[in-house]
C-alpha cells in the first residue's frame, strides 16, 4: 500500500498515512486530486479506480471516506478488507465510532492504524491482538501521565 487517506464528505482531510517518501507539496497535490475524484463519484459506482499508475480503493462509511492507493499487482479486494478491518478496530476501540471521535482523538486513530499496518503491510490479522497491544500501550501512557503532573506541581 502506498498511502491511506481519510476524508469527510466535505473534502476535509481527517487522517493521512504515507508509506512512500514524498515531499509535502506532492502529498498535498495528490490529496487534493484524489479527494476531488473520489467525491465526484456516485454512490452506486464501484470502489476501485485507476489513477495515475496506481489503483485506488475507497469505501464510504457514514460521512467518512477511507481511501487507499495500491500498486498495480495488488489485490483490490483484500485492500477493501483492510479498510473494513481498520473501521472495525476503530469501532471496537471508541465504541461505535463516529467522525468526531477521529477528529478529536486523531492521534489515537493513528496509533491504532500503526498497530494494524506497518510500512503499508498488515502486521496482524487478528483484531484481538491489535486491540490488546493498543490497550496496553495506552495503559502504559496513563501510568506516567498523572504522576508527571503531580511531580511538577509539588517540586
Amino acid at each position, binding site marked *: 500500500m502506498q498511502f491511506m487517506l481519510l476524508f469527510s464528505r466535505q473534502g476535509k*482531510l*481527517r*487522517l*493521512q*498515512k*504515507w*508509506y512512500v*517518501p*514524498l*515531499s*509535502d507539496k506532492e502529498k*498535498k497535490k495528490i490529496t487534493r486530486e484524489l479527494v476531488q475524484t473520489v467525491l465526484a463519484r*456516485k454512490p*452506486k*459506482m*464501484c*470502489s*476501485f*479506480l*485507476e489513477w495515475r499508475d496506481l489503483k485506488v480503493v475507497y469505501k464510504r462509511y457514514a460521512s467518512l471516506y477511507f481511501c487507499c492507493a495500491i500498486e498495480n*499487482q495488488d*489485490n*483490490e*479486494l*483484500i485492500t*477493501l*478488507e483492510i479498510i473494513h478491518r481498520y473501521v472495525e478496530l476503530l469501532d471496537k476501540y471508541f465504541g461505535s465510532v463516529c467522525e468526531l471521535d477521529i*477528529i*478529536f482523538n*486523531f*492521534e489515537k486513530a*493513528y*496509533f491504532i492504524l*500503526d*498497530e494494524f499496518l*506497518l*510500512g503499508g*503491510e*498488515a*502486521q*496482524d*490479522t*487478528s483484531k484481538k*491482538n491489535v486491540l490488546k*497491544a493498543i490497550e*496496553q*500501550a495506552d495503559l*502504559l*501512557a*496513563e501510568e*506516567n*501521565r498523572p504522576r*508527571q*503532573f503531580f511531580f*511538577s*506541581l509539588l*517540586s
Partner: protein
Amino acid sequence: MALKIVKGSIDRMFDKNLQDLVRGIRNHKEDEAKYISTCIDEIKQELKQDNIAVKANAVCKLTYLQMLGYDVSWAAFNIVEVMSSSKFTYKRIGYLAASQCFHESTDVIMLTTNQIRKDLSSPNQYDTGVALTGLSCFVTPDLARDLANDIMTLMSHTKPYIRKKAVLIMYKVFLKYPESLRPAFPRLKEKLEDPDPGVQSAAVNVICELARRNPKNYLSLAPLFFKLMTSSTNNWVLIKIIKLFGALTPLEPRLGKKLIEPLTNLIHSTSAMSLLYECVNTVIAVLISLSSGMPNHSASIQVSFSRHAHTFSLKYLGLLAMSKILKTHPKSVQSHKDLILQCLDDKDESIRLRALDLLYGMVSKKNLMEIVKKLMLHVDKAEGTTYRDELLTKIIDICSQSNYQYITNFEWYISILVELTRLEGTRHGHLIASQMLDVAIRVKAIRAFAVAQMATLLDNAHLLTGNTQRNGICEVLYAAAWICGEFSEHLEEPMVTLEAMLRPKVATLPGHIQAVYVQNAAKLFATVLRGHEGVPADSMVAQETSQLLIDRLPLFVQSSNLEVQERASCILQLVKYIQKLQQKDVEVAEEVTALFAGELNPVAPKAQKKVPVPEGLDLDVWINEPPSGSESEDEGRKSKGKAVFAKEESRHTKPRYTEVDEKELAKRREVRKAEQANNPFYIKASPSSQKVRRDGVGVEHIPVVQIDLSVPLKVPGMPMSDQYVKLEEERRERNKADKKKKKDKKKREKGEKGRRRRGDSGPESEEDITPAHMVDIVTEEMPEVGIYTWSLPHWTFSLPLSESTARHLNPCLFPSQKSSTHKKKKQKKEKKKKKHHHNHSDGAGDESVQNGTVEEEEPLPVSNQSPFTLSINPCPLCQIPVCDIQGNLQDGSQVVVSVIFENKCDSFIKSMEFNVLDSLNSKLQRPDGAGPHDGLIVPFQLPPGISNEARFIFSVQNIVMPQKLKGTLTFIVKTDDSSTHEKLDFKLHFTCTSYLITTPCYSDAYSKLLESGDLKGCSLKLEGVNQPFHHLLARICFHHHFSVVERIDSCASMYSRSIQGHHMCLLVKTADQTVSIDAKCDEPGLLGNVLDEIKLTFSQC
C-alpha cells in the same frame, strides 16, 4: 525557582490541548487562517518551555495542523526532543509527529540515529514498537545502514510483537539499503517457520514483496512456500503466497503444473472473494499460457465469477479479469457477450469503459454489426460528451481494427460514419474524417457509394456547422470535399456538388478545410468540362460552370488564410484563361483533366525497403570524402546511419579505414560495440532488422486486390446503417445457398470464385462469412522471406509469403487450390514453432514469432544449485558451503568469486582471514601495499548459525585452461571461556565455464559470425541422454552460461562469450538419446575444455 515551575504548571493547565485546538478551529470557520496563526504563535511559546509535557502537547497540536496543510518543518528539532523523552506517552507522540512530518530531506533525521537505536533496545516492548513504527515511515538510506544490524537482532526478539514489526520493517530497510539483504536473508527465511502466525505472515509479506522485484533469487524457496500454501488457512497469507507464485512461475514453468491442482481447489472451496480473485488472476496471468488443459478451468472460473458479479465492485473486477482472459482465450469470453453488453447500461462509467474495452477484443465478422448497432444506441443515450466521445472512438477502433478485418460490408461502415457525424459537440471529427478518407481510398469498390454519401454531406453542410468554430465535426467536410473531388467521376451531378462547395457560407469554415474545398472545386470543374464538351448543346453548361467559378472564387481570394488565398487566386486565373479558350471554342477538357490525372494507390509505410538498391550503388561508400572532423562526430554519424537503415552490426569497411587490416578493424568494432551496449542513449539495431532484398521486387509487387461487389450499390438519400444489418443477413443466407450450389458444380466453379476462404485463422463459425468488399491490403511490414507469384485467370498479383503476411492477408487471397495448400504447409510449420515456444516461455512472447524465426528463448534454470562448489575438508566448526565464480563484465581479466560463510557451530567466529596461493595465471587481488602472500580479512564476524557472503576479485591472465587454486581460511573461535585459532583448507576450482558470460546474440549476427570463417570447430557426442530437449538446453544455458539463439525442433544454436571476448557457438542436435554438439570458437583450447565440462555436467545426471 520552585515557584517558577509551579507557575509553569499552572499556566499549562490553561494551555490549549488538542481537543481545544480542534474545537477552536471548528468555531472559527470564517477566520480559520487567522485563528491558526495565533495558535501557531502559542505553540511556538510552548515549545520554548522546558516542560516536556507542554512540548509534547504542542507537538501533538502541530501534527494536527500539519494534516490541515500547514508547514511545521520549523519544529522538526522539537519533535526530536519529544521523541527522546523517557516517558512513553510523550515518546509516542514524538514518533507519531516524526512519522507524519519527516521525510528524506529533513536534516534533523541524522540526529535521531542514536535515540532510535536506544529505543530499539529498550526493555519495554512498546518503546521498541513505536520506534519501529516511526522508523518505517521516515527511514532514510543512512538510517537503514546504521540501524540494519539492530533491527536484524530484533528479528529474533523473544516477543512476537517485536519480531513481526522487525520483520516487516526489514523490507523498508532493504529498499533503502540493499546491501543488508544478503546477511539478513537467512534469518528472514527462518521466520517463515516462526511459531507465531503473525510473524510468519509478516515474513511471507516481505519475501513476497521482494520476490516481485526480483523473482529469480527466490526460486529456491518455492518448495517451502508450496508447503505453506497447502497448510495455511490464513487468507491474507494465502493471497501473498499465490502472488509470489505468480511471480515465480514464469521462471520455472514446472511450478505451474504443480500449482494447478491446489489453485483449482482453492477456487472451488474458498468463500473469500479476495482469495478467489487472487487465484483467478494468477491463473490468468501465468498458468493459462503454460498448460493446454487450462482453458476449461478458466471457463469455469470465469463463469463462477460472473455469477457473483452482482455488486459493482465485483462486476468491475470480473470485467478486468475477462479482459485478461480475452488475450489468450477469446472464445471463452465471447460467450458472455450479452452480459458484457448489459454492463454498458451500468451507472458506473468505469464499468462501462471496461466493458467497451472488452467488446473491442470480442468482435468477429459475425457479431460486428450487432455490437456496433448496440453501441450506436448507447451513443444516442449517452450523457456527457467525454463518454460519448469514448464510445465514438471505440466504435471506430472496433471497426477499423486489424485492417478492417471484421467488416464485411463497407457500405454499412460508411453509413455508420455518416451517422456519427450527426453527433453534436464531439471532438473527434478528425478521426471520422480520416476513416472516411482511408476507406474511400483503399476500398475501390465502395468509392461510388462513398462519393454519393459525401455529396449529400456537402449539400447538407449547414447542418453540421451549426456553430462552426467550436464544432469539431466540420472536419468531416474536409474528407467529404476531398473524396468528392478526387473521385468525381462517380458523381451523379457534379454541378450540384460544385455549387454546394462554392457557397458563401463555406468561407466561415476553418482555413484548411476551405483550402481543400477550393482545390477540389477545381477537380470537379475538370470533371464537368469533360462531361459537357464536345456536345454543342452542352458547351453552354461548361461556360456557365466557368462563370460560376469566376463569380465565387474571389471570395476565397480575399481569405485571410494564406493557403486558401494562394490556391484560390491560382485557380481563378486558370479558370479565366480556360474561359477565354472556351469562348474561342477550343477544346480544353483533356488538358484540364490532365492537371489532376493519376491514380492514388495505397502504399505500405515501409514499402521503401522493398525498393531494390540499383546496381552499382553502394550505400556504405562515402559519396564525398568525409571532412576530417573529430572522432566523436564521426561516431555520431555512424550510429545515426545505423538507426535509419536498421542494419545489424555494420560489417562493412569504410574506405577511410581501408588501410587498417581486418584484425585491427574487428578489434575497434568490438570496443565500439561494447561501448554502445553500455550506453543507454544508443538505439540498438532491432533483431528483426530488414535486409534490403535484391530480388528485383518493385513497388508494383505490393499486393493490391480488387474484388467486385455482390450487394446493390445504390441507396438513395442519407443511409441508415440498420438496413445493412438486414441486408447482411440476407446476403449471408444467399451466400450459404450459393455455396451449396457450388458444391454441386464444384468443378466448373473452380478457379472462378475468388473470394472463398481457406485456411481460416479465426473462429470456425466465421468460415461462411465472406466480405462484401475487399480492403487494399497494406501490410504493416513488408516481408522478407520469399516471393511467390501466382497466375490466376482474372488477375495477376504477386504474393510475398511469410508468416507476417499470412497474418495480415485475408485468406481469401488464395483462390486456387495450389496456393492454399502451400499456405497450409506454411501455417502448419508456424504452429509447430509456436507450440515449442509456448512450452517454455511464459507465453507473453506470442508476438515474437511474427518474423518467422523463433526468437531467443529465455533459458530456464533446471535447478537452483550453484554451478560451483568448493571442495573442502569437512569441518565441524565452520563451513563454506557454496561459492559462485563469475566473470567481471567490466574487466576482461577479472573474475569475481562470491563465497558464503556459514557458522555451523555454537560459538562465535571472528577474525577470519581468507588467503589463496596465487598461481602464475590467477592472482587474488589484494589491497595496495599488501604482500603477495598476505590474506584478506573477511569484513565481518559470524555469530552462531549465521551466514554471510564475501566477494573476492581474482585477476586472470589466461582463460583457456581450467584452474585449481589452493587456499586457507584462518579464524578464531570464541567460546565463553576460551578462544582457539582454527584453520580450514579449501580448493577453488575455476572452470572454463566460469569465464563465459551469458550474452544474447541475434540470429543474423550469429550467422555472420559463423560465415566469417575465423572460428575453429570441434564436436562432442553424448550417449544415453534421456531428458527432454528443452531441459537439456536449459541445463547448458544455466550451467555453462549460454543463450539460445534459435531453436527449430530438435536442433538449436547457442551462443556465449568469454570475458576476453572469444565467441563460442554451439549447434546442439538430438536424435533418440544421442546428443551431438558441434561447436565453434576462435580459441580451440577454451572450446575443448568447455566441451569437456559440458560432458561432465551430463554425465553427472
